[in-house]
């Protein structure tokens, strides 16, 4: 299938989706009080866009997301590389990592409320906790993927620690790190919105909660659509960055061919 045809079909699908949402409430198949048609959501969205408070809420969400992601990536990389370079440390921490990783970060919600209330700190706590493990685990996978022959070559030529990081760890680990960042970016958004929605920390989530409690249904849908677009943008951006940074790497080249 040609790229143009794919794009055409995709646009048709998108258009059909919007038309469906328009028609479902209009024909009375679903109650329009709960499910406003596309046009009314679009009007509500436009209304939001004209308000300064919408933009500051969007900004708050993005700041919490970005800052949390940054901390998580930095922490994940430092911890991952440290564990990679010191084998006994990795063995020492393996069980703890395996135990802490699956703990759902929403378990920390009450703790966040007690510590930070409705401030941005609550959001950051949840975002960092959730995103950190994504990065760390991918970095550890990446380190585990180092070609043993390359490793032995490096050792037989007596490369120092720094050279091993530069020429062995970095190129092997980078694709995994990028995957980790991509996954972490998506998870970070989920937790940022969750914190705002459930705790009431500033951002889009709290606006959704307000719209919900004041029965402003079209506004609520419009804001939810914004979070979806945000998520979409983050996914596409992360994938584009991955492709650009790793254009030399097999996994990306392989993907491009298919």
């Amino acid at each position, binding site marked *: 299938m040609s790229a143009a045809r794919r794009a055409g079909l995709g646009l048709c699908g998108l258009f059909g989706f919007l038309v469906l949402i328009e028609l479902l409430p209009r024909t009375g198949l679903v109650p329009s009080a709960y499910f406003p048609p596309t046009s009314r959501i679009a009007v509500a969205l436009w209304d939001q866009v004209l308000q300064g408070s919408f933009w500051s809420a969007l900004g708050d969400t993005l700041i919490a997301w970005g800052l949390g992601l940054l901390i998580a990536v930095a922490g994940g990389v430092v911890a991952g590389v440290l564990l990679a370079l010191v084998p006994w440390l990795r063995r020492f921490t393996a069980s703890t990592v395996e135990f802490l990783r699956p703990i759902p970060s*929403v378990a920390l919600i009450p703790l966040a409320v007690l510590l930070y209330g409705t401030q941005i700190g609550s959001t950051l706590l949840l975002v960092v906790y959730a995103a950190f493990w994504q990065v760390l685990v991918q970095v550890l996978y990446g380190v585990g993927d180092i070609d043993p022959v390359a490793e032995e070559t490096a050792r037989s030529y007596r490369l120092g620690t720094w050279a091993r990081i530069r020429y062995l760890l970095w190129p092997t680990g980078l694709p995994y790190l990028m995957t980790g960042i991509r996954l972490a970016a998506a998870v970070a958004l989920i937790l940022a919105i969750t914190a705002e929605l459930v705790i009431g920390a500033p951002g889009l989530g709290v606006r959704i909660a307000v719209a919900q409690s004041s029965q402003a249904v079209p506004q609520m849908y419009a804001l939810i659509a914004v979070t979806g677009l945000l998520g979409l943008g983050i996914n596409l951006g992360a994938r584009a960055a991955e492709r650009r940074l790793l254009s030399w790497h097999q996994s990306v080249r392989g993907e491009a061919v298919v």
Partner: protein
Amino acid sequence: MGRVMRRILVNVMWALTLPALLIAAWWLVSDDSTSIYSPPLRTILRTFGPTWDGDRLTHDVVPSLLRLTAGYLLAAVAGIGLGLLVGLHAQLRATLEPVLEFLRALPPPVLVPIIMLFAGIGDTMKLIVIASGCLWPVLLNTVEGVRAVDQVMIETARSYRLPAPARLRHLVLPAASPQIFAGLRQALSIGIILMVISEMFAASNGLGFAIVDFQRSFAIPEMWSGILLLGLLGFVLSMLFQLVERRALAWYHGLRASRRAS
């Protein structure tokens, strides 16, 4: 035999030392804590038993787990079924791709307010929330897996004239299963998040409800014990998942190991 035992013992030591140290440190540091937010670990552990006794277990923990199981299984079946359908039809896939990408990108917790409008605040709402959040990772990973089925394997099936149902069962599903399991794993963590959140939002029982209830009534040791229980639950479910995955994908792990060795 003695050597095997020793190796096991050494491994257990490696695995247990750090957790033991961390718990000991928590115990010691918090022992004379007077802060209401971080009560001594001793107190938290003492409240754990009485807090999560039989009554709370049947009233809060079991309903939570039932909702999670039902929603998750529903999403798994629907996600794999729809994923096969979309993955096998190139036209359909190209048409739906942008819409699916958008739906996947929606942070699942925002589904809660929408679904509350339709389904109220009962069990149905929670079930739908969990199912509709878990659906996308399963669906999209199944599509990816189906799309990536090896060309030679497909030609083999064609040349031996395997009819469509046999191809689905013996080729497409197993070939896509590693990817499907990756989706199921993502879905599991999303499912737990949604279970908790849907109960925090509006509920009269459930694990999430109980924890928030403790926090609001400043029953801090009880709240901490709830956090511990939730953490434990996440860990146990993830272990269970790994167990199932190891069994179902034994061939895949063997294949990968043999490739790495060569």
